């Protein structure tokens, strides 16, 4: 009998992705192209699964990130907060190839946080009086109206971390953290791609951003593209 938390480090992206199946719901970390699990995203296409549901803030951009899945035709549905200039998604939404569900960004994050925290539903002020409340229950507490939102769990989370130890304790880098930790808590199977892999004890207990309790497989990927979307700079004085 072996628990879920022994021997998490796998040798390859392909091995990390072995349990994937058609039709699964994927929570994919990243805000725009920042903090994307780049190798796992590419690996899913090679893995050959299809009919996927993506939960992601942007579902790719500039033809990169999850735009690769859109172009590969393996996505059935996208739950996101913002399409923006992700033309690959605009096109496939317009053609009806992909169903798109747009959710306020904070509600998206909180629905996954709830899924990870064992909370099936919660009330939020966001979206009250807008199209977001259509078809949902609303209710007043202390004189203010709120909308009931449901937890949003995933079958698989694809997570990008800066540093992981062999148990899966994670640290993230700057704003590459974004949705990654909360998605890790909300999926049945959490796969982590880390820039740096360290031994147990290398991260002080107080410096762990996300406990390895939420991580199931880890693959060490030292090289990443880390694409820029808008490279804004100022001149040195």
């Amino acid at each position, binding site marked *: 009998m072996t628990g879920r938390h022994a021997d998490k480090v796998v040798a390859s992206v392909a091995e990390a992705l072995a349990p994937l199946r058609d039709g699964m719901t994927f929570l994919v970390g990243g*805000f*725009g*192209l*920042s*903090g994307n699990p780049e190798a796992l995203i590419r690996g899913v296409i090679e893995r050959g699964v299809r009919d996927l549901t993506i939960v992601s*803030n942007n579902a790719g*951009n500039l033809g990169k990130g999850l735009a690769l899945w859109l172009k590969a035709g393996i996505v059935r549905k996208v739950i*996101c*907060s*913002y*399409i*923006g200039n992700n033309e690959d998604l*605009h096109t496939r939404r317009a053609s009806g190839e992909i169903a798109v569900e*747009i*959710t*306020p*960004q*904070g*509600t*998206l*994050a*909180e629905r*996954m*946080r709830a899924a990870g925290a064992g909370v099936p539903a919660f009330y*939020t*002020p*966001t*979206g*009250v*009086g*807008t*199209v*977001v409340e259509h078809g949902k229950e609303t209710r007043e507490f202390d004189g203010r109206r709120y909308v009931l939102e449901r937890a949003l769990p995933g079958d698989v989370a694809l997570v990008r971390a800066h540093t992981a130890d062999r148990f899966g304790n994670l640290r*993230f*880098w*700057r*704003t*590459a*953290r*974004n*949705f*990654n*930790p*909360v998605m890790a808590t909300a999926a049945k199977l959490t796969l982590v791609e880390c820039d740096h892999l360290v031994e147990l004890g290398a991260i002080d207990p107080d410096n762990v*951003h996300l406990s390895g309790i939420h991580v199931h497989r880890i693959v060490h990927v030292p090289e990443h593209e*880390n*694409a*820029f*979307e*808008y*490279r*804004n*700079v*100022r*001149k*040195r004085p």
Partner: protein
Amino acid sequence: MTHEPTPWSTADMARRAAREIPAGAIVNLGIGLPTQVGDYLPDGHAWLHSENGLLGIGPFPYEGDEDPNLINAGKQTITAVPGAATFDSAASFAMIRGGHVDLAILGAMQVSAAGDLANWAVPGGKIMGIGGAMDLASGCRHVIAMMQHVTKKNEHKLVRACDYPLTAARVVSLVITDLGVFQPTGDGFRVVDLAPGVTRDHAQARTGAPLV
């Protein structure tokens, strides 16, 4: 002696908006024009929140220092000031929804006399998404809207009631346009400030609700 109306430039609007930010405030600047407001804040005056997970946005990085994993909500490379902190999206929106952000300055398409904000979708247009707009508009303690006073087709944007899809109802406390600064009062807009040479009549002719 009368003057030709000289509407504010976007830089003027950003500078005017910066004056609304108290020292030590926590402020979220929306994508686009509101982001420029930061250029007119003295160093250390306020704490800029970025909903993708940073409190303490600094200026753009020096050339060569840019980090693709240190960006604002508009996906622009930024820096972090001393005292900045990073956090995940759930914590970030908990701050917003929980009323911990003092002020959001957001771009707008329409603002109603009741303070309703419409800024995420044009009826019949391509849906770009909601992003953090609804959370910011309904969660922050105060909301300032920034926009051109009328559309390119000279349609009113300060209106009695929004006909664009709402972002949030009754949240805008101040509207800054190229013609001035206006406060939704329920049945109209109070004139707080006018751009040089802009008269009440000039502004009223371009406003879909009474100036009061």
